[in-house]
């Protein structure tokens, strides 16, 4: 790659990321993320300061990040529909640069959402989940946001169907790989939680796309839909040992 092309790629990524980020930060979505994190936090009302951290708090952090990402994804769609992307491409910006810029900005959005949720938990006097789990979850958020957005933005440089198939495949493989990467000694509940969230991503992703594309529902509604599906999947998987034991005993 020539220095000129590399420079164009970088400049385009920076410009696209900037547009994306400003769109998100000026929308009502950051407020929605805060409210959403707060509701889920208070849902875990039984926990007290100093208690063993509940896995539900991990879910709060994860879903806040995920909804943050989703809001960022919405930005991409809007920029595409209002023609801004077309003008940028016509201006000579490489499509790959736009895709990278958006994927980077979505990842940053997810990280910010994690930070917001953690800050919220700290402000309410709760103990946040252990540092190890937080790192794993934050890494998962970033990977999820980056993977899905990148797959979606790859539709700028690849046929849409190919990009969608690549995105789903990346998520499925990512889910199994991520499960194995968890450090030895990770509690079974956390392992099940992480795996469940990963596995639920393709489903919730498609559902949110359907909701946003066909029903014209608000971002908050899409986020709630995501949360619902994600929580259901996590709830089932958290009880996996018990379910397995029951199945074995019945067998």
């Amino acid at each position, binding site marked *: 790659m020539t220095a000129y092309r590399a420079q164009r790629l970088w*400049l385009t990524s920076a*410009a696209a990321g900037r547009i994306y980020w400003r769109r998100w930060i000026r929308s009502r979505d950051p407020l929605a993320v805060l409210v959403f994190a707060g509701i889920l936090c208070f849902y875990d009302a039984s926990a007290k300061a100093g208690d063993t951290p509940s896995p539900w708090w991990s879910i709060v952090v994860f879903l806040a990040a995920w909804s943050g990402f989703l809001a960022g994804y919405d930005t991409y769609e809007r920029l595409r529909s209002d023609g*801004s992307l077309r003008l940028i491409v*016509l*201006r*000579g*910006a490489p499509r790959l640069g736009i895709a990278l810029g958006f994927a980077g900005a979505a990842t940053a959005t997810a990280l910010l959402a994690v930070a917001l949720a953690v800050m919220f938990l700290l402000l309410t006097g709760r103990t946040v989940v252990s540092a190890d789990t937080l790192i794993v979850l934050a890494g998962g958020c970033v990977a999820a946001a980056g993977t899905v957005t990148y797959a979606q933005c790859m539709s700028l440089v690849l046929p849409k169907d190919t990009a969608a198939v690549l995105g789903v495949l990346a998520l499925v493989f990512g889910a199994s790989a991520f499960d194995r990467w968890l450090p030895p000694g990770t509690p079974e509940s956390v392992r099940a939680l992480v795996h469940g969230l990963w596995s639920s991503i393709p489903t919730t992703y498609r559902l949110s796309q359907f909701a946003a594309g066909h029903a014209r529902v608000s971002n908050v509604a899409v986020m709630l839909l995501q949360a619902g599906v994600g929580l259901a999947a996590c709830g089932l998987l958290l009880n996996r040992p018990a379910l397995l034991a029951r199945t074995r005993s019945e067998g």
Partner: protein
Amino acid sequence: MSNAPALVLRDVAVTYAASARGAQPVKALRGVSLTVAAGQVLGLAGPNGAGKTSLIELCVGALRPTSGAVEWFGRARLEARAKDQIGFCPDVALLPATLRTSEAISVFAALSGLTMAAVSRRVSYLVERLDLADSLSRRIGTLSRGTVQRLSIACALVPSPALVLCDESFAPLDPVAQVALRSLLHDEAARGAAVLVSSHQLDQLGRLADEIVVLNAGRVARYAGPRVLEAKNCVVLGVEALDADGAVALQTAFPGSWMAGDVLRVPWVADDRPTVETLFGRLPHNARGAQLLRVEEFSLEQMFLDALASHEGDS
């Protein structure tokens, strides 16, 4: 960049595939040739659906010609470096609604590889010329259509492009902004930029452009060069009594003239109104049967209407 013209179209045709089963493909452009050189302003006029936007999209690289060739700065391919030299202002401003005016300008400056420090003088200049100072801190979504259009022009011009393409840029502007844009584009050409402007505002085109091409149904229906656009008067000759050779000889004797039914309109550049003696002194022998009907004020609108009428007659 080489000394080649900024933009050359050679016998270009663009055909859109049929949008529905049983529908015919749409021929947007049919063999259009034109050249825009550095320092030149070429106006593009034509009725709705004439192919103006297709032609501009072709020039910006958004469309590929079905046949014929397009050259940018002497090259047959629109490379990334050449795109850096093109300032494009589309007919509908395509700018992110959530950005502030100043941010939009800086994003487009950054896309060109220019830092804000490097272009700050240029930005100040454009903001002043396009009267955007009061809108700099406002979000694009809250601006009026005319202000968004002025911003779109600023975004197109901020990297000081060598080729400026404006599609219907005058349309949403108020008269003051139209004058400001005309003056700005004139200065861009004086700076050395090649400027191609499409518009329905014939008066603005007439004052701005060095040459005007009238498109109709994808073809060049009329070309008006600098001498035609300088004309103040128009001599109307009756040619009913002439045979075909005489009519052709008459048109050859008066470059820039055009037939409109049974009359020939001759743009008259000289300040003084032509007398019968001066006019008939220039008539070829086989066109002596022509009659001087009247001398009227030169009108681009008349030229435009005649171009459309004669072109429809031809096709």
